[in-house]
């Protein structure tokens, strides 16, 4: 099409009323013709106006609840704590709420002075997680299956904690990215396996996943991928190619499904090892 023909077709293009061939020609022309681009923007405003100028209508009841149910059932989406999420307190900003995790942790730590501080911290974290697991057991059969798996992981974790030389490192969350996020890693520097425990990490949209990074000061390798459950929790076994004492930093970022060769987004949580 010539310039004049395209100029005349722009109102149809803004209305999405052209066929595929015309669409491609106009699209290509707009990349090189500022006058036509300006004209398109004017008609685009008309088209947008037609969309937003609909009269107010009452919305059928229950649409918000159905949206949350769909999010729960979407593949890749993490199950939210629907009971609390759909309650009247749904607008309560989770990132601004008090931190019961920390206060409960402090309470549990006090009578357990015989344990090392790190061990006590993890024990308290396990108590919290076990409480949630018990609640989940009362839910659907599918959740029972998932909970059983998590319980086995907890048992393995406790076994790992009792090993000579194991220590616990609390990871620091980035306030701007995961304001409520809590995590700890149980690590034995002489072995190649560690356990990561996370709580209150944000649920990720479909197509995104958390990725663990291990950095030895020169290179960074992937330590695995994970998603969090309804409560933002996960227990992840990390397996490294060399003993973990070789690594200086552990960090977690959000990456596309399947993971990335290197981090592509800011760190969510992490710490020096």
């Amino acid at each position, binding site marked *: 099409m010539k310039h004049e023909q395209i100029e005349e077709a722009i109102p*149809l293009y803004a*209305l999405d009323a*052209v066929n595929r061939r015309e669409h491609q020609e106009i699209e290509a022309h707009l990349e090189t013709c500022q006058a036509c681009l300006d004209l398109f923007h*004017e008609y685009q405003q*008309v088209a947008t106006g037609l969309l*937003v*100028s609909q009269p*107010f209508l009452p919305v059928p009841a229950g*649409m918000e609840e159905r949206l949350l149910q769909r999010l729960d059932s979407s593949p890749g989406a993490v199950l939210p704590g629907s009971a609390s999420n759909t309650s009247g307190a749904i607008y309560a900003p989770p990132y601004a709420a008090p931190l019961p995790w920390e206060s409960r942790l402090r309470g549990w730590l006090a009578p357990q002075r015989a344990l090392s501080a790190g061990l006590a911290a993890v024990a308290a974290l396990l108590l919290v997680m076990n409480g949630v697991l018990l609640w989940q057991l009362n839910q659907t059969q599918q959740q029972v299956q998932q909970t059983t798996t998590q319980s086995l992981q907890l048992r393995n974790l406790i076994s790992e904690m009792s090993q000579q030389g194991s220590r616990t490192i609390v990871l620091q969350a980035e306030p701007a990215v995961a304001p409520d996020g809590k995590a700890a890693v149980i690590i034995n520097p002489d072995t190649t396996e560690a356990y990561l425990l996370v709580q209150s990490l944000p649920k990720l*949209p479909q197509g995104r996943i958390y990725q663990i990074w291990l950095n030895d000061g020169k290179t960074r390798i992937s330590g695995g991928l994970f998603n969090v459950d309804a409560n933002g929790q996960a227990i992840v076994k990390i397996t490294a190619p060399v003993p973990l004492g070789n690594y200086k930093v552990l960090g977690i970022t959000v990456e596309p499904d399947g993971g990335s060769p290197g981090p592509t987004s800011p760190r969510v949580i992490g710490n020096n090892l």
Partner: protein
Amino acid sequence: MAERLQDLTDERLMGLISQGMQTALVEIHSRYISPVYALTLRILQQQHAAEDASQETFLRVWQKAATFDPARGSLVAWLMTIARNEAIAIIRSNRRFPVMLGEDEQATIDLNAPGKYLQDTEWRDLRLALVNLPAEQRQVIELAYFRGMTHEEIAAVLKLPPGTVKSRILLGMRKLRLALVEY
């Protein structure tokens, strides 16, 4: 002092959604479900289909929040474009979906209806301009934009020469553009 989600801007909420915060999506839903539902119902003319399209719209927001760029336009424009695409996709996926010819559109538009979320005076002028278009111009614009038909498809449905349909769309769109410019 903690910020409340209700007090956050659309842009800030979209940032939180892209980080996976469901409650931020719920807040955006509560702000915009009404215009989204109104648009999808206008396009689909069936309550259940409109509910489905509205739901799909907010699922897209959940999935694509990171791609929203406020520099390229407002959230409401982005959202309504997604809603239109979702509704049109439902029509295109179902050949038996009834095609309304837009002849009774005037009767369904309430010019005094409140527009809670929008700059209503401006948009009411646009609604008024649309309603005041000659019926044959309004009809082809409706079929193109609210039924997702190309000018050739409209010509086939209305049994008119393609050139006539194009002329009617152009005349109508020029009048609507003038209505916005004059405002």
